[in-house]
């Protein structure tokens, strides 16, 4: 078991990476002066992983949508009690989340971190489901699905994804549907568990007021070695083209909201990191409050301070999304497309590019100021196949030419979709 120290040349921050003999990748960041500890135990298993096989399987297994999230809920119960009850004895605050491409179990605490870490490592490695507990969970998750349906931000986002993607499961709600979760049973949950919760497919990320040697000793004590079973996940073929250009829906909202997104070509690893950096700077230049486009739209009263952008990317998908409130989202969409065409014809302003790049650097360094952000950063980077501080170095080397290449190759008008949620009277 070798300790590899990873250091950011730019900020001097460092963390430790260990490939544990059990197969687990472990990231540890000791943060002197901080009181809290944040730990995440994650698997590369999210809502998009609905088709998979292992070494020796002839065929792919297809599972109902929402099962990764369902499994996350069920893992919180062990044979004797609820995991929350165990954390209650240490004072830690425990939680879990399922996203499109990962599931993570976490706790934050300010004392007894060793005992909380034992709880975390233990329960995630010890599944216990019965048909009765599965049946009960279907009711609880059904309520969660209903609640998220009342969230207009959630709906406008998924409507946009459905405009973009023909087949990729990213367009399906993370929790699935009431119908899809009804097809989940205990056997299926065990199959998914033993496929994806193999330590070779997982990562432990822990940051804050900790000692690396103590963490590793607990890992030695609690981790059960796993054979790497050669997990393979696949996605349905996804055409490069979008499904439809726009979608409108009405809901009880006080302000109309929009998501405007570009469907870009998917990529992974270092390529995704580079492209994300370029996409991030370009989209920030468009939403920058000092830009001409922003000022124009502000004067026309078609955007307000909620206008923002994000990069949403994972296995088999890469998108650039603009969001906000607007009475005329069509005008916002056209302005974005026109501005990009102008930049293609005239080039982007080097001074603005450098200023936005500097701003992005500042925000990345500020993330290193926070225990929770550091723990998440290490886990996410590992799952993306990169290092924790690679974003800072990739950003440093980014040129205006890279940004122009990204605009030229990826931000095409024919790949632009728009989703709008309007109030009943708007």
């Amino acid at each position, binding site marked *: 078991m070798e300790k590899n120290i990873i250091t950011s040349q730019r900020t001097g921050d460092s963390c430790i990476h260990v490939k544990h003999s059990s197969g687990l990748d472990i990231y540890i960041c000791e943060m002197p002066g901080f009181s809290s500890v944040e730990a995440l135990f994650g698997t590369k298993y999210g809502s998009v992983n609905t088709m998979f096989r292992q070494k020796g399987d002839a065929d792919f297994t297809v599972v109902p949508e929402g099962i990764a999230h369902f499994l996350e809920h069920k893992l919180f119960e062990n044979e004797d009690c609820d995991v929350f009850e165990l954390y209650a004895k240490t004072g830690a605050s425990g939680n879990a989340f399922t996203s499109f491409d990962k599931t993570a179990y976490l706790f934050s605490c300010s004392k007894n971190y060793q005992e909380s870490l034992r709880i975390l490592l233990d329960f995630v490695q010890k599944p216990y489901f019965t048909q009765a507990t599965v049946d009960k969970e279907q009711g609880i998750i059904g*309520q969660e699905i209903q609640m998220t*349906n009342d969230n207009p931000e959630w709906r406008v986002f998924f409507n946009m994804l459905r405009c973009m993607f023909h087949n990729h499961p990213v367009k399906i709600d993370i929790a699935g549907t009431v119908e899809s979760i009804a097809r989940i049973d205990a056997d299926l949950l065990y199959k998914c568990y033993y496929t994806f919760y193999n330590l070779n497919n997982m990562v432990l990320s822990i940051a804050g007021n900790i000692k690396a040697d103590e963490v590793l000793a607990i890992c030695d004590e609690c981790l059960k070695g796993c054979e790497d079973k050669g997990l393979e996940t696949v996605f349905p073929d996804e055409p490069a083209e979008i499904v439809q250009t726009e979608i409108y829906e009405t809901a009880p909202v*006080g302000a109309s909201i929009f998501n405007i997104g570009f469907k870009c070509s998917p990529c992974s690893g270092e390529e995704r990191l580079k492209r994300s950096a370029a996409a991030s700077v370009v989209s920030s230049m468009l939403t920058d409050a000092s830009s001409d486009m922003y000022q124009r739209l502000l004067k026309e009263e078609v955007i*307000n301070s909620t206008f923002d952008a994000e990069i949403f990317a994972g296995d088999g998908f890469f998108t650039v999304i603009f969001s906000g409130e607007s009475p005329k989202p069509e005008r916002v969409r056209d302005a974005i497309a026109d501005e990009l065409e102008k930049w293609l014809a005239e080039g982007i302003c080097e001074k603005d590019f450098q200023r936005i790049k500097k701003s992005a650097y500042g925000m990345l360094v500020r993330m290193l100021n926070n225990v929770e952000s550091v723990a998440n950063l290490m886990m996410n980077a590992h799952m993306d196949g990169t290092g924790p501080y690679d974003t800072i170095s990739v950003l440093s080397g980014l040129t205006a030419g890279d940004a122009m290449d990204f605009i030229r190759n990826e931000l095409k008008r024919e790949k632009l979709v728009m989703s709008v949620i309007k109030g009943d009277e708007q």
Partner: protein
Amino acid sequence: MRYNRTEIAPNIGFSSVIDEKFKTGSLVVRFITGLSGEYAAANALGTGALSSSSARYRTLAELNEKLSSLYGAALSTFARKRGDIQILGLTASWLNKKYAFDGEDVDAEMRELIRGCIFEPNVQDGCFDADSYSITRKDLLDHIDAELNNKRGYAISRAGEIAFAGEPAEFSCYGTKTAAAAVTSAEAYQAYRKLLRTSQIEIFYVAPEEDPGFIEMFRESFAAIDRAPAEVAFRSISPLKTEVAEGSDEFDVRQCKMVMTFKSASEDFFALKLLSTIFGETPVSKLFMNVREKMSLCYYCASRLVSPKGAVMVDSGVERGNIEKARAEIINQLDEIKNGNISDSELESAMLSLENALNQIGDTPSSYSSWYFERFCDGQIKTPAEQLADYRNVTKERIIEAAKSLSLDSVYLMLDKEAAE
């Protein structure tokens, strides 16, 4: 960590927290005044205009260009409600100069920029600049409209209107949409001038190293203002209604919301906080374990202590068919505490949960600022460790007494329209 509060002018405190572990500097200026339906919108607009331009950076574009050139420094304004008071302010954070690769003195640049925004706003002939003000007002109006988009938050706001009807706390910290739309640029500027003169002002500077320039800048700038500070009441217990008040709205939603407000005249804050923690603030609380987990009546069901008003609010996401059952069970769980049914493990896990939260204060700059501001409002500055000792002194009997002091005051329901038809 070094904490120090200095009174730099009548009713103006400057608190400095120096903690070497941070990579950023940050500043929060809070103007504290009584909440009123008449002035809430003007106050929100008067302070809101401070982050859209200044005499030096005359447009939002110029101001933002400067901020982004300072490594994405953040500057924003806010309005909040705390019981019967309105808290308005400006917050800023920036990268410490140690991390500036071009060697800029980011701290000094931000100090000057903040000074300009607060003390030299973009004003002509007694009015905020028309373009900047127009942006600020539209943003506030849109924000008021968008409150409905967050159903859980909206339900809690509506419950507050019903529970605290006839008291300042019934009003929104943003004012109404009608009031905000009617506030002129001159009125907003006058409201801001009045805040500078009459409000209680608390300033918090959190950074990795001392910079006396900040306190000096505020001391000098406020010296030029003829201060006449008005008293504010940080705590004003809300009277219990003679009959439980009920209110509801119907929307096209799939999940109903229920918010129950209980009131207490108890002055035992520490016992009330422990009571609320045991009742519904953690995943092992009585509400979570029974109403959600065992009885599956709600997807979420949580309590919160509204200390300045002596109230405990329980909010839940519930199917229409379960509303009455959930309401009865929430009351039943409170009765359990009133009857002394608190196990040692429930008490200990509540204590551990509070200890965990208290120990984490200081891990972010905003947690320092919020902690010391809240203690200022309580009238006694103390450390998280001292507060923990106060919790540790609370006996089970005091928690039972705190529970007995609570009575149901009002219930708000957000109902699903389709099911009603």
